[in-house]
């Protein structure tokens, strides 16, 4: 393992995450897998790295007052439950030898979907701006079935009155993804909060980062105890390079236009997904593999 490659990887992903305002976990884990780090370690170490990258982000949102702690806590309840179920699924898949495959398949599906949606959306935005129409995100407005669910709770900071069921449910789903894929899940949570739950855009990013810290921290500890899969040296190199890279990414990101940035990120996400898909269908050098169980270690 070459430390400079890891440093470069962390800095590059940090740069992108700063530029695009994403956590970067969904890029770190596949990159580590490409670098022949065992997927088990890549996922657990990725979760550890996301802790660091979401702390600095959510602190700045907290200072600016764009973080709803109450909403974040409700999300967190679901997130912790989801992460627990996810770890259980993770250990089960590992014992039957299908973990590497499922991680790759999930990444191909996720990166493919997210990349395609982002690309389509940014192309539409680029067309609109070419016609000199104002570029605006859809405003959360009308209510949907989500808002007719019981167990409603008032979230003062977000200025919404919402059932806790979809909030806990969303946290739960993302929690599973955190432990199985080593991602924070912000890139799914943010759109879901805006479009599905109609939560005001200004608190969405800070609140999702807030709950990601705790879910990824919890996942890291459970992965370390249950699977011994966290590589602290690898994670530390990645997070240091990542937070520094992010600072430069933010600066570059402010100078570029949003739609072009999103189109670029979409292409990158699609490329990573395509590479993983190729590895799945490419005939392996050896179809046999051997693992020691580690029971008598």
């Amino acid at each position, binding site marked *: 393992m070459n430390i400079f490659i890891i440093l470069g990887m962390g800095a590059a992903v940090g740069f992108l995450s700063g530029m695009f305002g994403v956590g970067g976990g969904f890029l770190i884990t596949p990159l580590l897998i490409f670098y022949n780090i065992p997927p088990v370690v890549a996922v657990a170490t990725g979760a550890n790295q996301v802790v*660091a990258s979401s*702390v600095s982000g959510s602190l700045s949102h907290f200072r600016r007052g764009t973080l709803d702690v109450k909403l974040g806590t409700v999300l967190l309840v679901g997130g912790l439950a989801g992460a627990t179920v996810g770890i259980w699924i993770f250990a089960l898949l590992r014992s039957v030898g299908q973990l590497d495959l499922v991680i790759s398949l999930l990444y191909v599906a996720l990166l493919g979907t997210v990349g395609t949606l982002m690309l389509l959306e940014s192309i539409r935005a680029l067309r609109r701006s070419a016609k000199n129409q104002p570029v605006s995100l859809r405003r959360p407005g009308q209510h949907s079935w989500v808002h007719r669910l019981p167990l409603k709770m008032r979230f003062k900071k977000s200025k919404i009155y919402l059932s806790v069921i979809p909030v806990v449910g969303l946290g739960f789903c993302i929690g599973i993804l955190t432990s199985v894929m080593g991602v924070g899940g912000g890139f799914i949570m943010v759109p879901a909060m805006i479009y599905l739950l109609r939560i005001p855009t200004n608190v969405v990013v800070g609140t999702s980062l807030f709950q990601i810290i705790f879910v990824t921290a919890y996942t890291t500890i459970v992965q370390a105890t249950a699977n011994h899969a966290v590589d602290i040296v690898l994670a530390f190199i990645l*997070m240091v390079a990542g937070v520094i890279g992010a600072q430069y990414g933010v600066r570059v990101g402010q100078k570029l236009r949003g739609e072009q940035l999103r189109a670029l990120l979409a292409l990158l996400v699609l490329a990573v997904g395509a590479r993983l898909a190729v590895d799945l269908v490419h005939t392996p050098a050896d179809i046999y593999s051997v693992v020691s169980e580690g029971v008598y270690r």
Partner: protein
Amino acid sequence: MRALAALLLLIGLAVPAGAQVLEDKPVNFPEKLEIGISTDEIAISSDFRGADLTIFGAIEGYDPALLAQSKYDIVVALEGPKDNNTVRVKERIFGIWVNRRSMTFELVPESYSLSSTRDLETIAPTAMLNGVGVGIHHIRLSPIGYVGDGSNITEFRDAFRRLKESGGFYQRDPGGVQFISASLFKATVKLPASVPNGTHVVRAHLFRDGVFIAEKALPLRVMKTGIEQMISNAAYNNSLAYGAFSVTLALLTGWLASVVFRKD
């Protein structure tokens, strides 16, 4: 006494699958085997790139006539710590390579380094080597659990040996054992760069004219040292503290970054 030994030898040769008879106790042969290593503990640093381990030994109570005809053969194996190992084979399903069938072998050594006076296959018949369980192609690979009609055991055993050999975990050196005087010998076994941590066993076997007659084993502890191993030990032995520390480190890194790069 010698007549008895000769009789036993005859019985041993007469039973074709004499393996089962011989594997328990190599009864009253006059020959005994003694071996010694300079240490029972080896410390390995993180820049270890493999090394040779030399083992000295002697045959006691040997028959000078047989020795003169080079009828004695010695096989020395360094067996690594044992663990269950699972071999999996991928198959293509809807274009995707998926692990399908698997077989788990019970308590096989993680590493295995063999050294002998000549090519093992010429020292003793296959059935006897299988019985003693010495040699990469003869160590016991017993599957655990349901194996169906057992027709694919050979496939998985072969794959296991091939993977272990190509990975450098299993090695052999025909000619690694040399007689330095009439009955005194020196065996060189290789410690691979990826030698596993734990208790290894140096096991020497004495063959007389193709018959296994004596065995002697010594434990050898391999201890990895250095910061990498310290971290790895912590990850396994104090995993909760290790996990908590990983999280603390991440929290601190993130917090420091937000302080250092604060814009206002």
